[in-house]
């Protein structure tokens, strides 16, 4: 198989040594085909299905539904039978606002601690990185037992509408900590030593050094973590499935991807699920554009 592939490449470049185009596309073919089948086609198909009532058995679009599902997702139109779908979008934002700032702050604190060069610091660095190896599903199982009522530490944390979302957020912060920590530590280590020293000589206090020297210099890393963290929160599903496995007390943990899962899996409402997935795409696109604009303003060394 590989051999045949190589011969095709060789032949194509020997025939027209000046024309790189043919051989380029031979190399690109596997990626292009895979993306066409598993990314582009399904995405366009989701956009199409979001405008139709979809047949549950053949998965084919059956009846034009216009923007009906989109109106429903934003609580507009006459189909909102007490459903509160816009709340899913709001809950997703709420979840992101709980997770991302807390992750960045605690990872930066850990990185500032671990940047000092003392004996045995390697052990501490490894410990702080450890959650990078722990999957959301495993973390979910561990935390579901920490939160378990039988343990009498947090008896009602997952069943109380006020605490359920923060509880899932706390578990998510823990899972994200390793990745954020290791990147921030690398960012801190990249700051030239003489900069710290000249700040010390100038008599800048440690608080001032932090605000005026350290923070601006790690801001590109912080921005990167802000973007990846936000995208991760908008796509969050696993922790909600494992910890809550429902829309949560008083619907308080029904984030967008969980609502999508329910519409798709439990209700077989393929059109509505598709509309939710297009909305997810739109929200992430808007966020990326906003953050791209922010990116051009952040200080680069």
């Amino acid at each position, binding site marked *: 198989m590989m051999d045949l592939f190589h011969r095709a490449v060789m032949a194509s470049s020997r025939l027209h040594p000046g024309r790189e185009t043919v051989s380029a596309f031979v190399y690109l073919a596997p990626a292009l085909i895979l993306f066409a089948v598993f990314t582009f086609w399904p995405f366009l198909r989701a956009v199409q299905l979001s405008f139709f009532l979809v047949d549950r058995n053949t998965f084919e679009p059956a009846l034009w539904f216009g923007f009906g599902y989109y109106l429903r997702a934003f609580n507009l139109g006459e189909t909102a039978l007490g459903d509160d779908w816009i709340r899913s979008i709001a809950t997703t934002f709420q979840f992101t606002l709980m997770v991302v700032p807390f992750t960045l702050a605690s990872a930066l604190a850990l990185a500032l601690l671990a940047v000092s060069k003392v004996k045995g610091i390697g052990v501490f660095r490894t410990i702080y990185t450890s959650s990078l190896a722990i999957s959301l599903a495993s973390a979910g199982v561990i935390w579901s*037992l920490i939160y378990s009522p039988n343990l009498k530490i947090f008896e009602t944390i997952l069943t109380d509408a006020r605490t359920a979302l923060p509880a899932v957020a706390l578990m998510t912060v823990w899972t994200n900590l390793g990745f954020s920590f290791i990147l921030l530590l690398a*960012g801190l280590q990249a700051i030239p030593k003489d900069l710290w020293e000249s700040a010390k000589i100038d008599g800048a206090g440690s608080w001032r050094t932090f605000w005026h020297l350290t923070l601006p210099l790690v801001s590109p890393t912080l921005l990167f973590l802000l973007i990846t963290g936000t995208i991760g929160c908008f796509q969050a599903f696993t922790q909600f499935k494992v910890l809550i496995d429902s829309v949560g007390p008083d619907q308080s943990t029904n984030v967008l991807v969980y609502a999508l899962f329910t519409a798709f899996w439990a209700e077989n409402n393929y059109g509505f699920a598709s509309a939710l997935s297009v909305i997810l795409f739109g929200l992430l696109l808007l966020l990326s554009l906003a953050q791209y604009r922010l990116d051009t303003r952040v200080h680069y060394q």
Partner: protein
Amino acid sequence: MKKALLYLFLTLAALAVLFPLLFSLSLALQGETVSPRILPDFTRLDFTVFAQVFAKEPLMGRWIFNSWVVSISVTAGVLLVSVLAAYPLALFRFRGQTFVLFLFLSTLMIPWESTILPNYLTIALWGWKDSYQALIVPFLASGFGIFLLRQAFKTVPAELHEAAVMEGCGRSRFLWAILVPLTKPALATLGIWAFLNTWNQYYWPLLVIDNPVWRTTQVGITAFRSTEIASYNLPMAATLIVLAPTVLVLFAGQKQLVEGLTAGAVKG
């Protein structure tokens, strides 16, 4: 004095970060109990629990095997597809190059969750439910992988490539004999990244696998938890067994992964 304070803070932070893991180890070793405590009775630790997991859930071994098969296949496939696609993007000049670059870039913008429904329907239509290929094939092309390797390949001067091709070195020979050995660190980074990501997948295997035999570990342990709801030691032990390979991969490849990832993130 100042040093002692630093160590105090370092230790407190370490305990906070490790708490969930230490706690799960503590629960796993307490034996079967309906009212577990935070710290176990150290005189009566029950290490047989790890063996009990395999006795209680005969499919556990199969799930671990499935996860290895799928993770290694995806890792190898992602490396191959990314190497092939990154090569012309980095070192050729061809018609439509900008367009292809734009296409690959746009795959980074489309979240996997937005395509999950039609992808599920495709897999169902092809009769691929409950199979390895359902867990492997959709993940073989990775926009992240292609861009990571394109950056790495670009560090090789284009003149070297042109000269080699002019001298009669075939393109594929240049790729496998020169380019790939020169960029091993980037390949290793991508490999570790792909392995960890695949091993930790949950949503997709949950959808396309009905028959427990084809489950991967991540879905397996959560199923295990719900069937063993009364006891704590078995689900915790099962979770720790599943964690072991990724922790090992991370510790073995930590430096590599960090260097590769930070090269992209810190330099912006």
